[in-house]
């Protein structure tokens, strides 16, 4: 409060006033206020992320039962007021022993990795072109990237069936041009799965890449040229390293959902395109084996989470690297 007004107030009132001010201030800026602001998103995460994960984790440690819900409870009142806790690890052992699951995990990782690389190879030049386009064009080009989101993901994947199937548009065109005399098997193949994933996730690669590229200070490239570096070399030594955060963000945004992808392999893939998302669905809905399905989900979470945490650790260490 203004010092000029203070003497007018009686000393007692002034000190009271100061105390009230202090209280309001500490509420607004202090620990309490801050805690309230932070608590809300945390409560959200707790309720809708952590709690479901814990439930899934709990189910994964139970056994299948012909009951509703179809699994054995983890905590049970046994006789004489003893609480029995039963942890059933058989589901995880089962995942490890049955080659189907391991193969599905490995195939999912492979499909996701290859798709991520393909998205990067296609998305980087696109993001670069948009970021370097005249500023009036940028918004239009970005809109074109985002436009497919206005149609449901499912419908777009279905549309690919129409394009790829034996009597679909692509085969029809190639046949009528005389380039082939037998329709190509495009649908229900690994090719179709890659195509579907790359098509669906490309915007998630382009947007973070664009965000880092458009923020780049172009005088850095002028400086590089001035110091004798031809454009291609400046790209490798300046643009690419500076866009690395975008590359990482885009790759994670593509890789993580692609590992667990279910709709695309289910609709476009064939019998040999085995992916873990599909296995999970089968366990849950066809076999009604909730415990194994939960174990599959937990294992998938770990497979993605562990490398992610390691990566973050490395990033943090690099950021706080001690400097002399």
């Amino acid at each position, binding site marked *: 409060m203004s010092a000029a007004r203070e003497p007018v107030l009686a000393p007692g009132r002034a000190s009271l006033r100061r105390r009230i001010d202090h209280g309001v201030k500490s509420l607004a800026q202090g620990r309490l206020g801050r805690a309230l602001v932070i608590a809300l998103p945390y409560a959200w995460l707790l309720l809708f992320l952590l709690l479901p994960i814990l439930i899934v984790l709990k189910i994964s440690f139970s056994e299948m039962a012909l009951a509703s819900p179809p699994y054995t409870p983890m905590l049970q009142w046994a006789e004489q007021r003893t609480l029995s806790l039963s942890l059933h690890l058989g589901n995880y052992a089962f995942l490890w022993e049955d080659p189907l699951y391991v193969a599905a995990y490995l195939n999912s990782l492979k499909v996701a990795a290859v798709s991520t690389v393909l998205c990067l190879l296609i998305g980087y030049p696109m993001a670069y072109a948009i970021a370097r386009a005249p500023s009036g064009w940028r918004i239009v080009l970005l809109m074109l990237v985002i436009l497919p989101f206005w149609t449901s993901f499912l419908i777009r994947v279905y549309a690919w069936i129409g394009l790829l199937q034996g009597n679909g548009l692509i085969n029809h065109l190639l046949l009528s041009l005389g380039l082939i005399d037998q329709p190509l098997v495009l649908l229900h193949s690994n090719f179709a799965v890659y195509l579907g994933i790359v098509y669906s996730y490309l915007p998630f690669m382009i947007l973070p890449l664009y965000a880092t590229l458009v923020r780049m200070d172009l005088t850095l490239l*002028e400086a590089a*040229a001035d110091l*004798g570096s031809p454009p291609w070399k400046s790209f490798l030594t300046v643009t690419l390293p*500076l866009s690395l955060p975008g590359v990482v963000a885009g790759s994670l945004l593509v890789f993580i959902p692609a590992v667990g992808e279910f709709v695309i392999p289910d609709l476009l893939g064939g019998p040999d395109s085995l992916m873990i998302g599909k296995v999970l669905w089968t366990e849950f809905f066809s076999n009604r084996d909730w415990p194994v399905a939960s174990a599959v989900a937990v294992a998938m979470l770990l497979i993605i989470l562990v490398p992610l945490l390691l990566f973050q650790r490395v990033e943090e260490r690099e950021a706080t690297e001690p*400097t002399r």
Partner: protein
Amino acid sequence: MPQPRRDPASLESWQDPDARPFLEIRGVTKVFDGATYAVDDVSLKIFRGEFFSLLGASGCGKSTLLRMLAGLERCTQGHILIEDEDITELPPFERPVNMMFQSYALFPHMTVEQNVAFGLRQEKLSRQEIRTRVGEMLELVRMTGFARRKPDQLSGGQRQRVALARSLAKQPKLLLLDEPLGALDRKLRESTQFELVNIQERVGTTFIMVTHDQEEAMTMSTRLAVMDAGRILQVGTPSEVYEYPGNRFVAEFIGAANLFDGRVASTDGDRVTIQSEGAPGDIVMHHPQPLAIGTPVTVALRPEKIRLLEEPPREDVNWVRGTVREIGYLGDVSIYHVGTEGGLTVQVQVTNRGRRTSGPLTWDDVVCLGWDADSGVVLPA
């Protein structure tokens, strides 16, 4: 003043008619969007070892000219020659020219060391050579202890030094500096002025600096060019440009100037008598070139060359009378704004010799001001 030290007896390269220019700019023009003339038919000759400044207000085309020298902008017309070799069409990465950017443009993902080494890596140099050169450069700018830091861990002044080291590392024939001190605070700017001139003397590279700060251009340059609206108005040493401004714009841009418009009444040898509505008597000035009677001219007088008089001079020439309107106390000097009877405002600068809190004059005092025939210049109006 961090003026480059020179042998006063030797002829300056720009005064020597036989000297070959190191850099020659021939009729260079830059047109943006087909209509905006950023640089308009500029020709300049710059000699080896010069510290040349391009001085002008923002938007006068000085930075565009510099960028054309670096190859970052293409010339619409004209040629740029370094040692008689036409480099107009060379891309920036093939020019023997380096630039220090106004924003410094340090690579944020590289350490100080890597930044300085960047240019050297483009040449076929051994690791050992690069390391030695980087060490030398960091020593030159006194940044040896910061070699492993990233640019965002440095202060503005330190970044400026790294940028200088990086642009000098390749030992360019010509170094271009775009507002090199613009981002520094005043104290640091003054000390860096000295340092930059010292470094220039030590490495012997030709420097071309762009600045909007006339004080900076005056203290650092061997010669400077005043630019306005894409054209060069005057080229000369700082004292030439200050003492003998070629036209009204230069007179007003470099330092303060009091201008009296009038007409030539008579001439007598190198003395010219001018009648002006701004002064009660005649104005008599030295002017070596002959002027026709009746020519409209402007007399430009520097505030520090005007004296306070007790009474009007007996000859009734070179004087005005007025009332003190504003007083600016700057410590070492005081600036008085005097509203004259002719309706002009004349600035007078008086050195504060005695220590007193109030000057010899105060507001609304009526004073007479006088000057000598050789303390100003006569400019074509």
